[in-house]
């Protein structure tokens, strides 16, 4: 049989047909062309998480205040805080805070003015309502009053003769303060740490137990497998939150307890996924081959099966964190979450609910938004990773 004259024919193309042959990193960068919109979704998820991670890590530096300190007056609306000093008599502008602290100032009780006066150590007369405060000024009971800067125009209209002698007094709170006067921005930033720690901790717990059990159960099979599967199925079919509620009620409050309670719910998920994978991998020839060569069970598990299971674990892990965040928030909402001294989005949400009636919407909106954002980020990442790490063969 004559062989073809290789010098004159074009070489047969050696481009890989199957995606499995292509390295992970190359897949990632080619991703945009290959996966189109799916890739963008993963990237968006990743970006969200990147941003959150930065925020979490740099909390001590970027947080304007201590999240537990009562830096402002309660229920300051977003963007509010700064006060202006009003007088009917004095005409010159005061620039020096020292001078203000020497004055006797009228303030609205428990509002920002009150707080500011305390901060600078000025003597203050507290009025029950704003109207009384203004009336007091007009009546001459008091020569100086502090009011919110956004009320300047309104007051100018009411009392044309009023003079603003100092501005921009006191702290500004971009996202407002909560019911105890804690800065929402700080609470959001520090809350990220809490939420992520609890979620990641519980995910780690769930995965270590679930994956181990799944590996063993899937590999060993037999009665042991059946028993463990049965138990796992029962836990899986139980309403998760209920399980967590019961456990927290028994264990008591605290970050570790909450993490443990939440982790139990997701053990079956890891178990099922890993076990399913182990079962299908087991049927593949090279495991059979290794076994027939007398390899020890443990080394088979470790070198053959485990590496193939990792992609699925990563995907489930990511989605698990999203779920854990939501469950923890749920627990807090019911009142079974973390103790009040730890800044936590779920806690803020639950607290804020009761104050909604009074119109203080910002207590729940920002934490709620953040929870949604982070949970979405992790879910997007998980879903996207699922596509990249477990690509389906190109259908042709």
């Amino acid at each position, binding site marked *: 049989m004559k062989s073809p004259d290789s010098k004159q024919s074009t070489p047969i193309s050696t481009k890989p047909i199957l995606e499995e042959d292509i390295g992970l990193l190359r897949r990632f960068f080619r991703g945009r062309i290959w996966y*189109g919109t799916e890739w963008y979704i993963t990237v968006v998820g990743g970006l969200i998480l990147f941003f959150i991670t930065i925020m979490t890590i740099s909390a001590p530096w970027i947080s304007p205040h201590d999240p537990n300190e009562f830096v402002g007056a309660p229920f300051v609306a977003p963007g509010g805080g700064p006060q202006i000093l009003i007088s009917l008599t004095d005409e010159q502008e005061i620039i020096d805070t020292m001078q203000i602290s020497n004055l006797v100032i009228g303030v609205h009780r428990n509002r920002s003015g009150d707080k500011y006066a305390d901060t600078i150590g000025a003597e203050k007369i507290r009025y029950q309502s704003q109207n009384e405060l203004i009336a007091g000024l007009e009546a001459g009971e008091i020569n100086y009053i502090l009011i919110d800067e956004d009320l300047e125009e309104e007051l100018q209209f009411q009392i044309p003769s009023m003079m603003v002698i100092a501005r921009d007094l006191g702290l500004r709170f971009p996202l407002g303060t909560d019911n105890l006067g804690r800065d929402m921005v700080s609470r959001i930033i520090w809350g990220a740490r809490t939420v992520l720690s609890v979620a990641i901790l519980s995910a780690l717990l769930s995965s270590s137990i679930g994956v181990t059990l799944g590996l063993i159960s899937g590999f060993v099979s037999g009665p042991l497998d059946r028993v463990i599967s049965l138990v796992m199925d029962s*836990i*899986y*079919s*139980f309403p998760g939150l209920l*399980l967590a509620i019961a*456990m927290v009620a*028994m264990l008591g409050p605290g970050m570790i307890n909450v993490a443990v309670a939440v982790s139990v719910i997701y053990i079956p998920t890891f178990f099922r996924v890993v076990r399913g994978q182990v079962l299908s991998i087991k049927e593949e020839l090279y495991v059979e081959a290794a076994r027939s060569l007398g390899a020890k069970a443990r080394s088979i598990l470790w070198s053959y099966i485990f590496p193939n299971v990792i992609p699925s674990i990563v995907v489930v892990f990511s989605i698990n964190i999203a779920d854990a965040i939501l469950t923890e928030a749920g627990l807090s909402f*019911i009142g079974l979450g973390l103790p009040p001294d730890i800044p936590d989005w779920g806690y803020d949400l639950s607290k804020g609910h009761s104050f909604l009636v009074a119109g203080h919407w910002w207590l729940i909106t920002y934490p709620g938004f953040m929870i949604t*954002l982070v949970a979405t980020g992790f879910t997007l990442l998980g879903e996207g990773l699922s596509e990249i790490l477990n690509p389906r063969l190109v259908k042709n």
Partner: protein
Amino acid sequence: MSPGLRRYIAIRVLLTIPMLLILVSVVFLILRVLPGDPALAVLREGASQEQIDAFRASLGLDKSLPEQYVEFISGVIRFDFGESMTRDRLVIDDIKTFLPATIELALYSMIVIAAVGIFSGAYAAQHRKSAADYSIRIISIILYSIPIFFLGIIFQMSFGAGLGWLPVFGRLSSGMSPPNSITGLYTIDALLMGNIPLFLDALRHLILPSLTLGLILGGIFTRLTRANMLEVLEQDFITAGRARGIRERVLVYRHGLRNAFIPIVTILGLQFATLLAGAILTETTFSWPGLGRLVVDRIFDRDFTVVQASILFFAVLVASISLVVDILYGFIDPRIRY
């Protein structure tokens, strides 16, 4: 009913019993075996040793674990759950009052979930990789990421307080008295009584809570339906149908959906546990007097017996739905029927 189907149902019913047993045991384990003394949890600090001992005796906690287990199971079988610890009522009466509310909420939420999930999932699968498909997928992910109570609160603020269209608390408006209890579901009972205004009132109160619960779970359901539909639509018989000139829409919604329906029903059943978990939060948000709310309230009261029984009934609910789904499965999948 063919003999094959009869046998299938019988097997399913029989299998439910061990499942229930396991669930009940899990409940037992959680409440008795976990660290944390229920006596202290209930009686709080400062209780005298006698009080603690008396309490533990009353619950049978002084006996050995196996004995406790036997007592527990026998109590369950007799439907004897004891008395409430903080109120002067039998636990079973409390359950009877609150359970139907949860069932009603779950029912209507299921309708929302099914409607939203099936149609948006099928639509997304049909128009794969289109803008609509991606939007639906992203929206469903975002929906599921919203804390249920947060969405509930938003609804309360906008529709209730803001626009004033819909009620935000409870099952009935004040001044309306509940219908005669036949099923315990206000809407159905009102209809059975022929009392239309009462029916409408109960229905209006159901709208926001079931919409909240339904939209959020509908998010997951959409994605699952879509995934199943995609698989079904890739099957050969769809291509074969297309080769005979059958229209796309008929292929997707009649042939495709009817086939995807089988796994979808299974998924609905599996989702039920998640639904109940979500119901707990929804009931708390909307002050809905259901079993979830009961658990939450009584946990803080430290009403141990009621909490224990409620958790049990949640488990029973889940098991029953699994059974119903399995049986339904037998009816809709001709491969099982014949």
